């Protein structure tokens, strides 16, 4: 007989593991992945592959030679970072820029902080913002989606819905006039609009989000409070002045809001740990997103909003503690 093992209680462990969570997220991203390949074709597939492979290689090398720890990649977090990064760039981005973004995401946003679990900011978003400020032209040049588009060359390119809205508003045009030039809600829902790879189709992201909720990888708090805040805030503005502010449904469907709300704001490492904190976090993300979208320079504010809120997470964790059992109420 072997030596008897002695350890502290509990002697059972549930079926949750980091690996299962991470690969669950990857599965949840698959619908958006298929949609993006369907609309943007081979370039989209290549961008995603380049991003994932670069993230994996970068993580392996940096873990091994910088952190000096077991360079196992099986937890799947690098795959998520790669996929999310690719979801946040246009398919026409040159491959070497995608690679740079991926290396930056893993190196600066993750390994520099000490690896998985210790990073303050969402690595994929840091990578995207890095690309956005480094290569603004390439990053805001969106290929027009064509279903079943299997050619390597991107023929046409155009602005995103939010981009064209902002441009037209800047020219002083009225909403009712601009609306005609914007894509229909149906197209926005299905994904036939210009934009980053993964953000175009609301339905694909919703499917993934439902899967995440079903698997209990995320809870409803962040996505719901985020989306509700955006809806309420833009709704109020729409009611105040419908000639200058577009209706809230547009804001929900346009840009990276859905992707951000379900996949990026909910990243466990960089979001608060209590339900109360999550609600506050989602609210903050929503307010910042709308502020940037309506009055900022950029047409899209999701990445910045989430990154800024990421920085507040330690504070939120401190400020919004869970209600303790048997806590004596004041008064």
């Amino acid at each position, binding site marked *: *007989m*072997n030596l*008897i*093992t*002695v*350890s*502290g*209680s*509990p*002697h*059972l*462990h*549930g079926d*949750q*593991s*980091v690996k*299962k*969570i991470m690969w669950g997220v990857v599965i949840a991203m698959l619908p958006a992945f298929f949609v993006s390949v369907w609309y943007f074709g081979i370039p989209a597939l290549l961008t995603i592959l380049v991003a994932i492979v670069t993230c994996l290689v970068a993580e392996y090398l940096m873990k091994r030679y910088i952190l000096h720890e077991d360079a196992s990649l099986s*937890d799947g977090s690098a795959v998520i970072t790669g996929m999310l990064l690719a979801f946040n760039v246009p398919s026409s981005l040159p491959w070497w820029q995608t690679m740079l973004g991926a290396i930056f995401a893993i190196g600066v946003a993750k390994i520099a902080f000490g*690896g*998985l*679990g*210790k990073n303050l900011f969402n690595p994929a978003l840091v990578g995207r913002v890095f690309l956005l400020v480094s290569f603004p032209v390439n990053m805001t040049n969106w290929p027009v989606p064509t279903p079943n588009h299997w050619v390597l060359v991107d023929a046409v390119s155009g602005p995103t819905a939010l981009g064209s809205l902002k441009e037209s508003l800047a020219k002083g045009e009225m909403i009712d006039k601009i609306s005609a030039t914007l894509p229909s809600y149906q197209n926005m829902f299905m994904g036939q609009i210009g934009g980053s790879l993964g953000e175009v189709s609301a339905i694909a992201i919703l499917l993934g989000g439902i899967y995440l909720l079903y698997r209990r990888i995320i809870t409803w708090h962040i996505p719901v409070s985020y989306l509700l805040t955006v809806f309420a805030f833009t709704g109020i503005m729409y009611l105040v002045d419908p000639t200058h502010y577009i209706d809230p449904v547009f804001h929900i469907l346009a840009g990276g809001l859905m992707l951000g709300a379900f996949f990026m704001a909910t990243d*466990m*490492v960089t*979001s*608060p*740990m*209590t*339900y109360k904190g999550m609600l506050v976090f989602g609210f903050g993300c929503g307010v910042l997103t709308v502020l940037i979208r309506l009055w900022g320079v950029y047409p899209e504010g999701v990445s910045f909003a989430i990154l800024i809120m990421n920085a507040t997470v330690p504070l939120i964790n401190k400020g919004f*503690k*869970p*209600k*303790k*059992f*048997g*806590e*004596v109420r004041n008064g």
Partner: protein
Amino acid sequence: MKTFKIGGVHPNENKASANQPIEVVPVSKIVFIPVSQHLGNPAKPQVEKGDIVKTGQLIAKGDGFISANVHSSVSGKVLKVEEVIDYCGIRRQSIVIETTEDVWEESIDKSAQIITECTLTSEAIIEKINENGIVGLGGATFPSYVKYKIPEGKKPEFLIINGVECEPYLTADHRLMLEKSREIMVGITILMKGLKVNKAMIGIENNKPDAIAKLSSLTSEFPGITVHALKVKYPQGAEKQLIKALVNREVPSGKLPMEVGCVVQNVGTAFAVYEAIQKNKPLFERVVTVSGKLLSKPSNLLARVGTPITDLIEMAGGIPEDTGKIIIGGPMMGRAASIIEAPITKATSGILVMTTKESKRITPVSCIRCGKCITVCPMGLEPYLLAKLSEAQMWEEAEDDRIMDCMECGSCQFTCPSARPLVDYMRVGKNKVGQIIRNRKN
């Protein structure tokens, strides 16, 4: 259906021995009876080497307010009174008895007849509970009579009987409720009299429908007692959680259930009280669940205190080849044994034999701050933070974050996707913070 509000987990129940009737373990040749089988001061031995003792005879007397009497579980000759290694390998003062023919004290009523009448006064009942060495059989082994010494200015309203048995594998209380239901009801009635309350509530998780039905059918004969089915959720058997589930009151941090007018007692204790009061039988034997996936015959065994653990495992089919760990108690809060020749005590509610594969912990990885430990903590604590503070030896911060409220139920570690040893570190923290608090008081 009633349950407690915050936190909780659902481990696999694995109650393999639920349908096994209670069997009696034959008396061992030599028994080792530790004098400290309860919380508080160890009892003082009353016998010496060479003394002849009868079953049920007082062999060690409680020392101080929080302490309990210890009675001989066998009859025979005292071989020695010295330190014997317990299952953790720690030496404890014990009385070693070589058994002869099983002769019981004359005062003990050995008949199976159920005596319902009890004419004793409240004080006499409490005194008899103390005399017979009854301790809480749920696991904490708190001397029972202490709970009935009501502090000034407090008035008990409810007696709460814990038939939850939320630990996986364990079925001892379940079988007891089925086989000794009437005795338990009488025991509860006696306890109500001792406590001077007229309401008692029995909480049973609804994975034991037969026990709920059996006890419910008897409630008409015993006024004041109600049976409540509870939603299955671990750790419902914890005192504070059970009170929350049954009467929706929260025991304040660091206080006893008496603060909200409740006294909690295990069904096993209720049965022991019945035997002590109506049959004059001290607490020297208890029902132990012996279970595990590898055992050929998971069983519920009525064993004398002091019987070696190996004897019980033998009754359940012997120690399997692939044994990796032996747990005394339930799998969530029990302690792993390193010495399996050690004796069982009043506290032993179960013996679990785990396979090698089950025994090894999953290698921990870094915390991914998912917050699941916070979600499942029934006390509303932040286990990840407490474990980290404890690891970093930041005791004051840990105290501020209420590390002493942790009851080590293990829900956090059970859920942690990173398989971090949260409870290990919190126990270190609790130990240290406890010392600091005690030093401050002195």
